[in-house]
């Protein structure tokens, strides 16, 4: 069998139903094989778009997302998406064409050392040197991408090798990877120790993150937190893993988190960090982060434990397994819930004093926060929301009360502007029965607007709610607050005309600038047939608060 056909067979064997990509010279044999393949190929309009679509697909479904690109510029266009998948631990496989083996190293036409370029930004990579490796590496790539701490795996396939003839036998069992043994079960002694410490804690906080979503451990997290009255906060990556409308929910923590969540961290005596990696958007100034707390840290990646904050009780393992055992051990101790009464009194006081809020306009002006609230109502809180990067992302995190995991899809670690639209396309392909809304920033969306064509041509009915503030709003905010209002290159002018642009691509385009009409306009956009965009003209200079200035401590929150 031709190796390129074996590649497609291997993808089929991995259960692949959709892939995203763009063909070119070096992957022509693969695209010839794709012509007959049983999975659906969705042609993107830029490889970055294909990569983010694969991420959106993976984040929405928990399955491995796949993107193809040709050698050279095709492969380098994937780099942002690969890095994004690395920083957010997204299970993805990227398959690039490479020049013929006899051209490698000669600066051949469209040659780029993509395995070299991507070395620091992949979980692993394979450069095929023998055509028989092609199906083997595909299986290994899927295994590595989806197990342990998920991440991107690159398979680079030289053109001549994908045309070679090989014997293909369907792979059986696990790939042979002697150096790869991701941990699964947590150490029961450590779990017991954690349960006993918790039973003695007076001011505990559960701080959970994207690892809960990866582990499909949302139910276990709820079960654990409600086995006593444990307060829960989540990172932006974990939103939805604990339902936002819940009595024990403190709101998101970190730079744009709630004061309650951040003050609780600051005052806690025991912090249970689960599937969260103490990012600097959470810790702020490390030396003043949660100064009164001891840390239990549960993570499937041992290198995350004690990387930024030293753990007192480290537990390496899958969050789902550990949470189930921890709940059992903790229940057995029959800890006295009343010991938490004072803590809850304090938390309730913060909640009452510092609710999330904003000053609404007295006229028709649409405040950005109002827009998110309207979006929540128009979608009945049920839509899958993807986001770009900036103020709108943080307002969505604050005001759209996510109630289930995989409902909120954003770029947290890399903070990639332009992530939202292609990710929405991927998410909609993975979950065709869900309403998928991309909350876009006007600065972000224009970076990937070619992907309007992808949605139009493939008839993928995503909706874009554009928060149009005419600025690189988040950067404008920093210049206002920390750079003396010296606004340098943050105004966007009024280009493009978004309604016309959407229409040019075959979308429905609408505009709204009056808050009294906003919810109806949103509903009309949701009801429109096919992909549709709503250009929402919001206040131009609103700031996103509260905020911990970069490098400051939780106590120094402003706004």
């Amino acid at each position, binding site marked *: 069998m031709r190796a390129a056909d074996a590649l497609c067979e291997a993808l089929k064997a991995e259960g692949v139903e959709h892939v995203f990509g763009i063909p070119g010279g070096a992957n022509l044999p693969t695209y010839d094989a794709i012509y007959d393949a049983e999975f659906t190929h969705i042609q993107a309009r830029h490889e970055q778009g294909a990569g983010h679509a694969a991420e959106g697909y993976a984040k929405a479904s928990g399955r491995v997302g796949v993107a193809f690109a040709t050698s050279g510029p095709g492969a380098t266009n994937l780099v942002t998406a690969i890095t994004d998948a690395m920083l957010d631990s997204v299970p993805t496989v990227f398959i690039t064409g490479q020049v013929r083996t006899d051209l490698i190293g000669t600066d051949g036409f469209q040659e780029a050392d993509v395995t070299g370029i991507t070395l620091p930004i992949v979980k692993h990579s394979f450069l095929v040197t023998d055509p028989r490796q092609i199906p083997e590496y595909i299986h290994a790539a899927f295994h590595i991408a989806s197990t342990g701490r998920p991440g991107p795996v690159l398979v680079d396939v030289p053109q001549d090798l994908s045309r070679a003839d090989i014997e293909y036998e369907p792979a059986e069992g696990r790939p042979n990877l002697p150096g790869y043994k991701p941990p699964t079960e947590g150490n029961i002694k450590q779990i017991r120790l954690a349960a006993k410490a918790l039973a*003695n804690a007076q001011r505990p906080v559960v701080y959970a993150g994207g690892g809960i979503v990866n582990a499909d451990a949302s139910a276990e997290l709820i079960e654990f937190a409600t086995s006593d009255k444990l307060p829960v906060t989540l990172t932006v990556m974990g939103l939805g893993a604990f339902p936002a409308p819940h009595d024990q929910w403190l709101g998101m923590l970190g730079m744009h988190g709630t004061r309650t969540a951040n003050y609780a961290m600051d005052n806690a005596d025991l912090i249970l960090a689960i599937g969260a990696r103490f990012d600097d958007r959470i810790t702020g100034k490390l030396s003043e982060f949660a100064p009164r707390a001891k840390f239990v840290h549960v993570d499937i990646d041992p290198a995350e434990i004690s990387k930024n904050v*030293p753990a007192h009780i480290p537990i390496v393992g899958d969050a789902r397994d550990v949470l189930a055992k921890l709940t059992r051990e903790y229940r057995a101790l*029959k800890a006295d819930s009343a010991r938490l009464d004072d803590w809850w009194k304090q938390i309730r006081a913060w909640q009452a004093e510092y609710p999330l809020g904003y000053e609404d306009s007295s006229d028709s002006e649409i405040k950005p926060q109002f827009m998110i609230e309207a979006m929540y109502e128009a979608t009945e809180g049920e839509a899958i929301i993807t986001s770009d990067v900036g103020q709108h992302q943080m307002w969505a995190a604050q005001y759209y009360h996510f109630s289930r995991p995989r409902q909120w899809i954003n770029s947290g670690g890399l903070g990639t502007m332009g992530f939202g639209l292609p990710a929405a396309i991927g998410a909609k392909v993975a979950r065709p029965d869900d309403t998928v809304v991309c909350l876009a920033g006007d600065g972000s969306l224009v970076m990937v607007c070619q992907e309007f064509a992808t949605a139009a041509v493939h008839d993928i009915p995503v909706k874009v709610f554009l928060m149009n503030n005419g600025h690189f709003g988040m950067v404008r905010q920093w210049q206002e607050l920390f750079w003396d209002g010296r606004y340098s290159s943050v105004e966007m002018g009024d280009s493009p005309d978004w309604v016309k642009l959407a229409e040019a691509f075959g979308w429905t385009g609408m505009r709204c600038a009056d808050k009294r009409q906003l919810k109806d306009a949103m509903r009309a956009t949701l009801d429109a047939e096919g992909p549709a965009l709503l250009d929402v003209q919001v206040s131009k200079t609103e700031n996103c608060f509260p905020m911990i200035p970069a490098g400051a401590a939780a106590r120094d929150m402003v706004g």
Partner: protein
Amino acid sequence: MEAGTPELVKLEDLEASRALTGRKHVLSLLVENKPGVLARIAGLFSRRGFNIDTLAVGPTDDPDVSRITLTLDGAVHPIDQVTKQLHKLVNVLKIRDMEPDQTISREMALFRVQAAVDGRAEIMHFAEIFRAKIVDVSRRTLTIEVTGSNDKIDAFERMVRPHGLIEMARTGEVAIARSRPDQ
């Protein structure tokens, strides 16, 4: 059980392990003998800001496996974090943080020194004391091969440097665990 009974863990008794050990560490890695593995390791070190003091790569008894011996300063780098990051590389099979008193480690070095007639005898005397070998001679220079612990080679360097060190090449340490007496 009642909350707060001694069986529960008192929070004030909990301690986090310290990150810096303050001493030199020798890490012995077994890695798959595949193209690009060294680049992955070197890349990891540069990306994470870890500084390698010495690095030696060579084959092992198994042709599919290579050994990489690295030395690092545990006063600057959290060794625990270094080994955990290395473990994440799929081609790394095994990592040993060698215990100093249970490890035999050796380095080889070549020194070319100025050896005019008046100093020559003294240099040859040093070589003898250090059980070094003279491997090349010219009218004004001697080339000397020294094998031993890293400290021994440092010491030899200190001895010959005043005579005029022209060139020096060191391999970096390789290490192997001592066998137990009953083995």
